[in-house]
């Protein structure tokens, strides 16, 4: 409780000096809220690195204030979702100490990869509204960069995609050709085991493959974007998620709502969880 009060006071102090002439026309509280909000993911990264001043103006990289560690520690404290019970205070402290350590401070880099977006979109599928999860990555292209769809998770497909080992008892015997492959009926009569009869080189399609196919067939139609969040693996030994909180008060905008200490060998476990590959 004391920590939270201290945090709110701190934000107030940080942003109290930011009021413009407009602040005289409108409630000071409102303007403080708006300054405090982490308005874009770009701003999240800049605050994480302490690359801008309190008004959001970027520091010159040659300035002493650029990435200055003490101010950076204060910013980092403000970048957590205060309402999340998933992140113990001790974990935050440990994370902040790790990324701001004197010898090798760690910064986020927009172009360095190891982070991606998870976008939940509402689509119409066979006339019924469903949610698809798109995993977007930044890709270098032409003279610059673009966001691309790297993966998709679409619940209606999940029961039909098998990633299990083939049953060795299901096969078409090597003399099947002499019978004009009449035994193929076994394959088609039990679709749930049909993959047992495929070549060893066959791999089940990814959701993205089928999604694109259905999109082209016109079975899937876009409705809207429901939610966007970002997953960061850029800080060695850590994973965190950033989501948007559109709410009144000083703790709003793009904030860390999940933080996990992650040894490199467990990275794939976390990725599988995010990609819903274990469900």
């Amino acid at each position, binding site marked *: 409780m004391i920590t939270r009060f201290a945090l709110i006071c701190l934000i107030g102090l940080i942003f109290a000096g930011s009021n*413009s*002439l*407009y*602040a005289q*026309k*409108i409630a000071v509280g*409102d*303007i403080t809220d*708006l*300054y405090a909000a982490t*308005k*874009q993911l*770009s*701003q999240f990264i800049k605050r994480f690195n302490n690359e801008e001043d309190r008004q*959001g103006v*970027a520091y*010159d990289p040659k300035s002493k204030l650029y990435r200055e560690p003490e101010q950076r520690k204060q910013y980092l404290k403000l970048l957590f979702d205060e309402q999340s019970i998933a992140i113990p205070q001790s974990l935050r402290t440990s994370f902040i100490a790790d990324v701001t350590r004197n010898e090798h401070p760690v910064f986020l880099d*927009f172009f360095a990869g190891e982070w991606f977006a998870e976008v939940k979109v*509402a689509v119409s599928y066979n006339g019924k509204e469903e949610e698809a999860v798109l995993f977007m990555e930044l890709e270098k*292209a*032409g*003279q*610059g*960069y*673009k966001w691309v769809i790297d993966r998709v998770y679409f619940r209606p497909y999940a029961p039909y995609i098998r990633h299990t080992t083939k049953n060795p008892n299901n096969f078409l015997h090597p003399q099947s050709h002499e019978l004009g492959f009449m035994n193929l009926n076994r394959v088609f009569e039990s679709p749930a085991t049909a993959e047992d009869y495929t070549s060893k080189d066959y791999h089940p399609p990814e959701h993205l493959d089928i999604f694109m196919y259905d999109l082209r067939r016109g079975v899937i139609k876009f*409705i*809207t*974007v*429901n*939610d966007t969040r970002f997953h960061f693996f850029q800080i060695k030994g850590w994973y965190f998620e950033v989501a948007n909180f*559109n709410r*009144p008060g000083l703790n709003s905008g793009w904030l860390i709502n999940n933080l996990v200490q992650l040894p490199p060998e467990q990275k794939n476990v976390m990725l599988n969880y995010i990609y819903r590959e274990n469900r």
Partner: protein
Amino acid sequence: MNRLIKTFSILTFLLVAALYAQAQSVNITPERKRAIDSLALEKVRDLSKYISIIGDKATSMTESQRVIERTMELFMEGAQMGVSSLNRKGVRYYPVQKYLERLRALNYQRVNIEWYNIQYISDLVQQPDGRFVGVITIYQRFEGVMEDGMRYVDVTKKDITVYVERKQQQIGGRLIGFWDVLLGDIKVTETKRG
């Protein structure tokens, strides 16, 4: 008058030349970025001014049509307005022209738009076709007063896409390349009702 035109031409030329110099380099220096940001903010301010005029009942139909046309000149072709709300999931999409026509149809007696002096401008990032793209975030207080005195007030967060695009223009018989700023898709997030 001639002197004014001459001064304006010189200023335009200097701006064009400055932006042209930037085209030669992929990395935009902080100084160049500030110049581009300021040009982009000018366009955003124009947009705000035009929205006030379009939404105001005192504006004649002919005048509002003219202002809608002027507003469309600020935008890239195909730009959309995305509207989201605290009260529902998802984003609703309107072509900018349709959004402006809907605004005109709201028919407020008076529209007052105030800006919180908060603009957050992202870095400009180069996209595959060479154009640079950035996002300006602003907060805007919209107050619409109906004929019966009822007021509608909201504070909205606007995330405005800004494209910095290379163009060519004839100046004094010479074809000069320069970078122009155009607005793209805008996402309006309804923050709260006042």
